């Protein structure tokens, strides 16, 4: 069960950090008029289509002692990022990026532009408009982004294997351990972990859909219906 806690810790860290990165990134992607914006949109969507091994391979090169990030880390802390929990978080941020950003973009873009205009003519600057109007109206999207990046990171396998390897208590996540158990024909233990992961993932998603439905009814639907 150590691997389960490790996975949950990793998923929680990634979901939290991704929200901090995702809010400004999604705001910019939703509202900027920059003509080369599509370029960044493609980069954000890239992890959706790349095989995790490709992503993991380049993440390993970047985080390793000769990679740019790894070298910098090495200079600061005396060890590289490959095969560490921190390295795993960084690689997972990349891997789950579209899940943490795209629901936010969709939410921001679905807000009636007239509400933003109303906020401006009532004297609110961009920051106040974001905090008082955009964010509260995007709560279902924020929840979706957090939960999807959490669940997606929880079930991550290929990237972890490439970047983290298989160090017990440090980088051996639950999906790696399941793989290990199956390899050594311990089907009972594998089933125990796999089933737990299944239940946790299902419970998390059920909460999202349940809450989203309720929120939408309270906040969104009456307003859309007008």
């Amino acid at each position: 069960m150590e691997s389960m806690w490790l996975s949950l810790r990793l998923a929680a860290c990634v979901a939290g950090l991704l929200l901090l990165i995702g809010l400004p990134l999604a705001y910019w992607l939703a509202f900027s008029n920059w003509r080369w914006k599509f370029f960044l949109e493609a980069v954000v969507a890239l992890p959706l289509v790349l095989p995790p091994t490709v992503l993991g391979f380049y993440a390993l090169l970047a985080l390793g002692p000769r990679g740019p990030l790894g070298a910098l880390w090495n200079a600061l802390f005396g060890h590289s990022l490959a095969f560490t929990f921190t390295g795993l978080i960084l690689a997972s941020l990349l891997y789950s990026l579209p899940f943490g950003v795209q629901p936010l973009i969709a939410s921001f873009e679905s807000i009636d532009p007239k509400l933003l205009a109303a906020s401006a003519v009532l004297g609110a600057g961009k920051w106040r408009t974001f905090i008082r109007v955009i964010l509260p109206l995007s709560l279902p999207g924020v929840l979706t982004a957090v939960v999807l990046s959490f669940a997606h990171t929880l079930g991550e396998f290929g990237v972890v294997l490439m970047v983290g390897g298989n160090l017990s208590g440090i980088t051996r996540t639950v999906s790696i351990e399941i793989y290990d158990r199956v390899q050594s024909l311990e089907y009972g233990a594998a089933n125990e972990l796999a089933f737990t992961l299944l239940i946790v993932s299902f419970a998390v998603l059920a909460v999202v859909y349940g809450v989203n439905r309720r929120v939408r009814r309270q906040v969104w639907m009456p307003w859309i219906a007008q």
Partner: protein
Amino acid sequence: MTAALDIQVTSARRGPGSPSFLLDVGLTVPPGFTILFGPSGAGKSTLLDCIAGLLRPDDGRIALGSEALFDSKQRIFVEPQHRRVAYVFQSLALFPHLTVEQNVTYGLPGLSAAEQQSRALEILEGFHVAGLASRKPAEISGGEKQRVALARSLVTNPRVLLLDEPLTGLDAGLKSAILDDLRTWNAARSIPILYVTHSRDEVDALSERVVAMDQGKIVTEGVSHLVLDAPRRRRLAVAAGFENLLAGSVVDLREADGVMRVRLKQVELEVPLGHALPGDQVRVAIRAGDILVAAERPHGLSARNVLEGRITSLDERGPFLLLRIDCGDLFQAQVTRGAARALGLALGASVWIVVKTYSCHLVQG
């Protein structure tokens, strides 16, 4: 103390979906009501967006008294949040996640909570919706929403008020009640209020100074009935409720009488003298309500245009009947149901129509 709003802007709107006309407007809005009237797509909302700072015109200057809000030459563009120009949208744009009171206090940051609340309740009382303070916008009626939207805009003590068809869909009684509240509010402050509408009925109800706009330009301005009862452009005539728009050519001018004759497809009409020469193509606009219908040939009338025709259709239109009458050219006339009964008007019946010369208006384009 209060400043007039001076607008002098040009703007080419580009891109798919937006009309490609040039906004080319020179206008002064004095304190008090000014109605901006015009057909849909005339550029009315675009102009309001420019005044509020939501759109940046290509060129020109928008100033409030001596203070420039926009000046292309001096590169001045005041952001909308710093203009103190209140704007009530057609969709009202109340924040759906905030209560009525929170909507109203939104424009009052920096005040203490108690001060915000007392100001909000005061203005909500002025618009007779103080009892709704704790409701969400989804829980109040259309008319109440419109009052709340007005209150939310006015609580900020704006220097200009822009209203983009804020009262559409309300019945006449409710509309005039809200407008009375607005007049009361502005009596003490006297700021310029620009009220956009494409509804002729609203213009009649407000009876204020009217500025008519079409295809991005100011077409006429003046007192409401003068502007709208003699529209000089076809699209404006349609918007102002002229059912008959008939194309024809000028036959001759009788300058001594101040009239000229216009030949339509089949019949001739006597119309007021306009800027036209014999042979010119013109359009004549006539309100359906300005055409008299007679069951027999009328005589001894001062009206110069008396035509015989046949009723080809009758449509109910509120308390009236709209008749289509084929006199060679097709005319639409409006009569009350009582009159229709008394005259025995029915499909196919032979009738006479009477049109006074000065009920005919020449329009361009």
